[in-house]
């Protein structure tokens, strides 16, 4: 029983550590391949700070040679119409 408890405690500890590192902020990623094109949403990343969000966006959405890529934090978006 002791070992099961110890194992459960360890698992809880591991989960706690992982939860402590969970990213909670969503960033929408917009990019364009040509200057004459508008920016369009290509996906999103989760990161707690803007620097890591930039690193993640660059590495995840690297399928094209973008001329521009920007991030918008989801919590900065103001909803005007919601149905």
């Amino acid at each position, binding site marked *: 029983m002791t070992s099961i408890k110890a194992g459960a405690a360890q698992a809880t500890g591991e989960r706690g550590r992982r939860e402590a590192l969970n*990213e909670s902020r969503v960033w929408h990623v917009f990019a364009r391949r040509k200057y004459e094109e508008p920016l369009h949403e290509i996906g999103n990343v989760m990161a707690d700070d803007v*620097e*890591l969000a930039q690193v993640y966006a660059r590495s995840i959405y690297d399928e094209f040679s973008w001329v521009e890529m920007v991030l918008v934090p989801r919590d900065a978006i103001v909803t005007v119409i919601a149905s």
Partner: protein
Amino acid sequence: MATTLVDNAALFTILSSLADNKQTIGRRYAFWCNGAPALEAAVAAAAMTQDELGHARTLYPLLADFAQGQADLSQLDPMTRTLHHHLSYLDHDFRGWSDFVATNFLLDTALTTFFEAAQNSSYEPLRQRSRKIVQEERVHFMHAEGWVRRLAKAGGAVRATLIASLQRLWDETLCWFGPQDDPIMLRLYNEGIIDAMPDELRHRYLRKIMPILNELNIDVPVAFDATTKRWMPGQSLPWETWGVLARRTGET
């Protein structure tokens, strides 16, 4: 057609060490491409792995241009090379994600400091590569800084594990630049291959990382001379076990 070989043992030594460190960092990073704490971090780890192996791949071929490399051609190719002039910290797999973060933050930033000092190098192949590497490493440093902050601010065991990783790598990283009278760095400096001697390189390096560590209240053995505004190691480095050719500790 015979080409003229470069005869410069000091430069050959440093290029070998840079290539071995980059190659081994890439291999260690690769292990974390599917083991990082978050999917985004894993993808970034994969991209950084590619970058590091790419840096190594541009450096190893230069060794073939040196007279010092002709004695044993098998040492010029990472696939057949048996010499390992990377830091002893990289001898084994990382113990955890904090080792990845520490390597990126401390060691890779130290190597970048060297490449920055070689951006106007009199040795053209290094000059070209340095500029490209410095450019790519900006993103790596953003990743390093972000993760050092995250792990430090998580507190508890997470913070303690990060600090342990930083401490294990600290001295050996500072040693890599060599002692101030390092004959290898002295020759590179005198020949215009780099623009600074070891103490100045260490100062430039510490100037980059110390504001972050200070902000996070992470204690490391450094000193700051308020008069000269220069950073330096706060305690003597383990030169007695450091090898000038392999540029790693555990050599004696």
